[in-house]
């Protein structure tokens, strides 16, 4: 790497008051033609370009982004990373990502602040207990670390949880994945952008795709706000806007785009050193390195691209948070925002070829895409480079909605979608 970040580069740049750091990625105008164009400059799109260049030696790539990189759902999620999924296909996919996370800062020479602080999922009724025990066994059979905790063990692991039996949804137990945790979401986009740019990938921001030009079943290129770009391979990683791009190519996808909200509190001293999620009451919380509580809410049930959700959704989430953590009752919330998530009928993603040759989609991550960023990029790059899915993403094809071979993680996953 040309400008490796290290202790020495930090000292060297200190002498010039840190004013001469080279830009982490360039801001070029688009070339006339690319071998591959990735639509969407979020974590997944940038990771795809990075692995296409690194593993598959394709360097003539553009990533086109409507706004700025990492400004969509990459910068809007609650940064939780885990792989404790029930079904084998999902477990394989998410644990592949988790394994890459474990070495990602070193690989990218960029600190993504990956913190394996553990993720605990709570059970509030007998069915939850049975489901979580089943999932623990399923995880272990797939080589994923998981332990089941009873109420006392939950309390010991996270002492601020209210484990009184008198509350509306008492804590009957929980699961713990210790390898799980959080990462700095912006850094993931920036690290991949820097790495991809280093290998010759053009990252083109403020460039909105307006149309996809086809000649029969062959792709000719894309119309953008920065002109026509010729290409015959397109990877679409547009999250909530996947259906909009699909429509440009004359495709229909099994997706619905809905607002998902999150909020952060004022910063406080360290109070919760893990991530706690609760499916039944739909509340999850962790604490950022700045000290803010990071709280995730649920989705609205209607289609919207407005990037703002309903107030009653966050009210419900905060009710649950306060019952589980009475200590937070006087905390002030500082910011609240929404992102648009694309949800599949089976709540599993699509990393797939399409009926159109050279057009690939990576979408449908719904409420849980951030954790998969490195694995998703790696497998999508494989799919694009070989025109064939990797065995880890073969189950996540678009055709499963025709064949009926769904990967139904609705309810089976550790959090409701």
């Amino acid at each position, binding site marked *: 790497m040309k400008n490796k970040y290290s202790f020495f580069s930090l000292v060297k740049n200190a002498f010039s008051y840190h004013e001469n750091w080279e830009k982490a990625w360039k801001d070029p105008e688009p070339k006339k033609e690319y071998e591959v164009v990735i639509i969407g400059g979020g974590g997944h799109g940038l990771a795809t370009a990075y692995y296409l260049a690194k593993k598959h030696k394709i360097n003539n790539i553009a990533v086109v982004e409507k706004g700025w990189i990492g400004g969509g759902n990459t910068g809007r999620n609650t940064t939780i990373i885990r792989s404790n999924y029930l079904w084998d296909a999902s477990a394989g996919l998410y644990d592949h990502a988790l394994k890459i996370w474990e070495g990602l800062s070193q690989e990218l020479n960029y600190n993504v602040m990956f913190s394996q602080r553990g993720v605990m999922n709570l059970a509030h009724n007998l069915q939850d207990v049975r489901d979580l025990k089943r999932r623990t066994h399923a995880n272990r059979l797939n080589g994923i670390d998981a332990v089941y905790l009873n109420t006392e063990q939950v309390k010991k692991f996270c002492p601020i949880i209210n484990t009184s039996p008198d509350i509306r949804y008492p804590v009957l137990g929980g699961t713990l994945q210790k390898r799980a945790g959080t990462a700095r979401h912006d850094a993931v986009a920036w690290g991949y952008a820097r790495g991809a740019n280093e290998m010759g990938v053009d990252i083109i921001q403020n460039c909105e795709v307006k149309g996809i030009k086809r000649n029969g079943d062959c792709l000719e290129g894309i119309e953008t706000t920065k002109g026509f770009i010729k290409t015959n391979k397109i990877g679409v990683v547009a999250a909530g806007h996947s*259906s909009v791009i699909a*429509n440009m190519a004359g495709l229909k*996808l*099994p997706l619905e*785009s809905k607002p998902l909200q999150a909020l952060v509190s004022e910063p406080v001293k360290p109070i919760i050193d893990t991530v706690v999620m609760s499916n039944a009451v739909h509340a999850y919380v962790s604490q950022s390195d700045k000290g803010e509580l990071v709280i995730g809410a649920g989705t609205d049930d*209607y*289609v919207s691209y407005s990037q703002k959700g309903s107030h*009653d959704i966050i009210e419900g989430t905060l009710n649950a948070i306060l019952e589980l953590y009475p200590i937070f009752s006087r905390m002030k919330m500082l910011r609240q925002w929404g992102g648009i998530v694309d949800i599949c009928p089976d709540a599993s993603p699509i990393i797939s070829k399409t009926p159109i040759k050279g057009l690939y989609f990576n979408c449908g991550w719904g409420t849980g895409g951030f954790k998969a960023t490195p694995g998703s990029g790696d497998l999508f790059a494989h799919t694009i480079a070989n025109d064939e899915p990797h065995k880890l993403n073969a189950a996540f094809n678009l055709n499963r909605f*025709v064949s009926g071979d769904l990967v139904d993680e609705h309810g089976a996953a550790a959090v409701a979608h």
Partner: protein
Amino acid sequence: MFLINCPFCGEREQSEFKAGGEAHIIRPKQPSELSDDQWAEYLFMRKNIKGVQFERWNHIHGCRKWFNIVRDTSNDEIKAVYKMGEKPPVG
């Protein structure tokens, strides 16, 4: 967060309602005669429009009746409300 003008009860908060998804998807008369592709199209594929979309809603915390609305999904502005069985407004 927005208000919906229920054709039976009048204007109420959106939180009183349940969204029922895309409207005017007609259930096939002879499902057994469809190909897998046609069944998938009916069951799973959605327009998921960014812009003006026709939708079904149910006033679950009110009259519990179904009706249709026309809504711009890019800003949640409601353009029209009409009852089940009525013709969708044009333009």
